[in-house]
């Protein structure tokens, strides 16, 4: 059994939540203390048992006014899937133009989200960095 101290991020209150955890391999929460609301409790449980994250990265673009387009996951993915998602993102390549919000990768590593472009890249004279 181990204890973890977390700072809740659900609201700016930032409660310090203390969580008792059984079995660090596949963590199971046995007790939660310190939260001021039920959202904090739910968050703490999720955060210990199956932390979810959004990630941002870049994809190269050919023929654009930028060599890279920034991308992000629309919805959080499990922390444990980040490596696999990054590997998939690294295989991507796009042609300009690219619009904000366009889906560059659906269901990355089987997760229920999309990876979308977050910068507008216009078609332009070849940029040597791309």
């Amino acid at each position, binding site marked *: 059994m181990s204890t973890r101290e977390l700072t809740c991020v659900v609201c700016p209150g930032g409660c310090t939540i203390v969580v008792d955890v059984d079995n660090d391999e596949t963590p199971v929460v046995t007790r939660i203390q310190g939260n001021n609301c039920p959202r904090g409790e739910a968050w703490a449980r999720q955060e210990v048992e199956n932390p979810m994250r959004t990630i941002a990265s*870049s*994809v*190269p*673009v*050919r023929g654009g006014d930028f*060599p*890279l387009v920034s991308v992000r996951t629309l919805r959080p993915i499990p922390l444990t899937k980040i490596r696999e998602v990054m590997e998939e993102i*690294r*295989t*991507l*390549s*796009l042609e300009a133009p690219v619009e904000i919000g366009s889906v560059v990768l659906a269901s990355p590593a089987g997760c229920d989200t999309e990876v979308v472009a977050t910068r507008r890249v216009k078609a332009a004279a070849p*940029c*040597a*960095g*791309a």
Partner: protein
Amino acid sequence: MSQDYDVLVVGGGVVGCAIARELSRFKVSAAVLEKEMDVGLGTSCRNSGVLHAGFNYAPGSLRAILDVKGNSMMDDLCRDLKVKIKRIGKLTVALDEEDEGTLQRLLEQGRANGVPGLEIIGKERMQAIQPGVEGFMALYSPTSSIISPYALTIGLAENALANGVNFHLGQQVVSVTPLAGKGWEVGTKSGERFTCAVLVNASGLFAADVCRMAGITEYSIYPCRGEYYVLDKRLDGTLRALIYPAPKKNAPGLGIHLTPTVDGNILIGPSAEYLNDPEDHSCTYDVMAELRREGKELLGEIRMTDYIRNFAGIRPKQTPPEVGGNKDFVIEDRKDAKGFVNLVGIESPGLTSAPAIAEMVRGMVEKHIPLLPDPAFNPVRPGSPFFFSELPADERAAMIAENPNYGEIICRCEKITKQEILDAINNPLGARTLVSIKYRARASMGRCQGGFCVPRITRILRDEFGWNPEDFLKRGGSSPMFVGNVRPKGGVSR
């Protein structure tokens, strides 16, 4: 296959480049071998940039003679080479009774050395020159001046190059062997071979090493490091002249002082610390703390936010720390090694003396090979001593209308334009590092220290000159800036 020259100059510092430029007046083939990827990267770019008047040296010594001569040559030289010089004068200040005697001695010594315009002045004139200056009496030397030492070195090198001297950058001399007939064969680390009738050893911190390669063993160099702070241009104008305390006996240098630079910064330093490694240009915690302390004492207006950078330069001293002091220059035409013109221990006032040293060396070279003046010699270097931002607004507007690159500002802190950056990248010596751009265009020398300009310069080099990330070197081959792309260029191939 070796490259043959009449004269080989080992060392591309301010002295080596001055010698090269002097030789380029004549119909001789000459080359400079420089181990770094650019000229002046040793001691020449790492000092206070002061041109000394010449009262600090014993009459009849080489330092006295060559400094005074060199100082008198600087106006013409800077005009021809387009190098900024400011004749701001110096106050050597007496703070106690001992100093009063020192000033008198320096005045007499200076007069004996032929230093023009020297006089002892009192508080009133001192205050007129520098309001608020400490001390009751000062030696005023109007020919003391400031200059950019790397601008001078580059100016000398480029003019020498234009007049036919070859510059071999990135060539570190590792062997010097006498040739049977006459002259020398020089081998470099990269395996290149050069031959010459006369070898000029102007290798500064490594002069004793090159001596030993040629079988001359009586010299040793004791590296003595001086650390500096560079202060923000906010303080530009607070120092109107050089202000030095009267020197104390046997000090290894002239002590920590404040020096205004020709570009508007102020330097605090240099310190003095003997080292083993002639290339250890680190700055240290204790010395930096001492520089801050002394600087604040000398100039109360200094704030923490005024410190923008540190650097260090190393003096090639000829005597170990126990002995201390300052030996005279060694400039000799060796009798035991025919055609070996040897320069050892050219520390301060080496910068001021450089053009006069070059003339003296030329006189020695002349004893070995005939030097016929080259009528095609052009002493004038194209360009301007001023940065674009220093020109009046109307002139700038006209130049911008003609060349749009002058309107695009790349270095925000120093207001350096794209054209100046392009000129620095396209420099005639072919130096291809970030510091080469820095020393020519001043980019990254401001308060943001390259935060704004370096990404923009990177983009120019990549997009307009086709550089890849691995081509970006800070000072040379062992200082790459980057490790590669984040994503492959042109995207991932399917």
